[in-house]
C-alpha cells in the first residue's frame, strides 16, 4: 500500500507539474491585482475590421449577440457592457483569455471594428487556471487544457491527502512535524472563526 501510494503521489505530481506552475503564478500575481474599481484595461494593441450587415429589426442586445457570433473571436469567453458610444454606435466588450476586445458596430459603413487589448502573461495564466472540462473558450486547445486542469485538481487533492498518509506511515512520531501540524491547525481554525 505504502509503495503504491508513494508511486502514485510522485506520478501525479510529475504529470500535473505545469498546472501547479500556472496556479502558483496566478496566486502570486493575484496579490498585485488592483482593488475593485481601480482596474484599467490594457492599452490597445491592434485593430481589425470586418463587414457586417445587421438585421434592421434587432434590438441592441440581439445585435451585439449577432456581432459577437460573427466576429468569431479566438479563445472567447463571453461579452458584456453593451452600450452606445458618444457617436451613437453600438459598442460592447468581449472577454478572451488573451485580453479584452472592444467591438464597435459602424452602422453607416456596415462594418465592425475590433480593438484588441492584449493582456500580459499573468492575466493569461489567471484565465487559463479557471478552465476545466465544461468551462473555458470553445477552442480545442482551451478545451484540452481544461481536461488537464481538471485532472490536475483531482491529482492535487489526492497528493495532499496521500502526502499526509505518507508522513503518518513513515514518521508518525516526528515531534516537530506534530507541533507544526498543531500550529497550522490552530492558526487556520482561529482565522476561520474570525472570518465566520
Amino acid at each position, binding site marked *: 500500500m505504502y509503495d503504491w501510494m508513494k508511486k502514485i503521489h510522485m506520478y501525479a505530481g510529475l*504529470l500535473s507539474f505545469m498546472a501547479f506552475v500556472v496556479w502558483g503564478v496566478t496566486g502570486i500575481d*493575484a496579490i498585485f491585482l488592483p482593488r475593485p474599481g481601480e482596474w484599467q484595461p490594457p492599452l490597445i494593441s491592434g485593430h481589425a475590421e470586418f463587414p457586417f450587415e445587421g438585421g434592421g429589426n434587432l434590438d441592441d442586445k440581439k445585435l451585439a449577440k449577432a456581432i459577437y457570433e460573427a466576429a468569431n473571436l479566438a479563445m472567447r469567453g463571453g461579452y458584456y457592457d453593451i452600450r452606445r458610444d458618444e457617436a451613437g454606435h453600438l459598442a460592447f466588450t468581449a472577454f478572451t483569455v488573451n485580453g479584452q476586445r472592444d467591438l464597435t458596430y459602424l452602422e453607416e459603413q456596415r462594418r465592425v471594428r475590433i480593438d484588441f487589448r492584449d493582456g500580459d502573461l499573468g492575466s493569461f495564466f489567471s484565465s487559463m487556471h479557471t478552465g476545466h472540462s465544461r468551462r473555458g473558450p470553445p477552442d480545442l486547445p482551451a478545451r484540452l487544457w481544461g481536461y488537464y486542469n481538471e485532472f490536475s485538481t483531482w491529482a*492535487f*487533492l489526492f497528493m*495532499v491527502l496521500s502526502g499526509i498518509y505518507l508522513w503518518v506511515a513513515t514518521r508518525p512520531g516526528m515531534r516537530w512535524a506534530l507541533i507544526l501540524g498543531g500550529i497550522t491547525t490552530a492558526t487556520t481554525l482561529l482565522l476561520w472563526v474570525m472570518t465566520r
Partner: protein
Amino acid sequence: MFRLMRNIHLILGQLFFFYAMLFAASSLVFIYRPWLKLPRSEHEQTVRVAAETARTPRALAFELMRNHRLKGELGNIKQEGETIQFMIARPGTRSDVRYSASSGEAKIRTRRDGFLETLVQLHTNHGFWHDFLPANAWSLLSFLGSVGLFLLGATGIYLWFCHHEERVIGFVILGLGLVYSLTTLVLSRTA
C-alpha cells in the same frame, strides 16, 4: 541532502495542508457547481439608528459594526435623498443595508453561505487592501501558499530524481505532461 529535502517537503506540506485543501475543494466546487446543492440562509432584521450616527454611509456602517455585530467590508454605497444603501461583506456572509433617515430604521438583509461556498469566496479573495483584517490574512496565506506550491514542486522533483528506479518512468510522465500542457497553453496564447 535527500533527508533535508524530504524534511523541507514535509514542512511545506504541513504548513500548507489546510490552504491546499481549501484550494482543492473550492476548485472542485467551481467545476461541479451545477451538480451541487450549496446551502445558504437569509434573514432580515430592522434596527433603529439615531440620525446623528448615520450622517454618512461610513458612519452608519461603523455604527452597525460596533453595536449590531455586523462585520466585513463596506461596499456598493448608494445615497439617494434620505435613503442610504450599502453592503457589508466578508467571505461567506453579506449584509445589504437600507437606511431611511426619516424613519431612523435600517433594514438589514443578511445572506450566509455554507461551508463550500465560503471556501470558494476565500479562493477568490486576494490583495492586502481589505478593511476586514482576516481577508488580508487569507490573502497572505494564499500568497505564501502559492510560493509554497513552487517549493513543494521543486523539492518533489528533487525527491523523485533521487529515486533512481523511478527516473525513466518519471521522465516519461513528466515529459508527457509538459508536452501536452505546454502545447495547449502555447496554442491558446497564440490563437
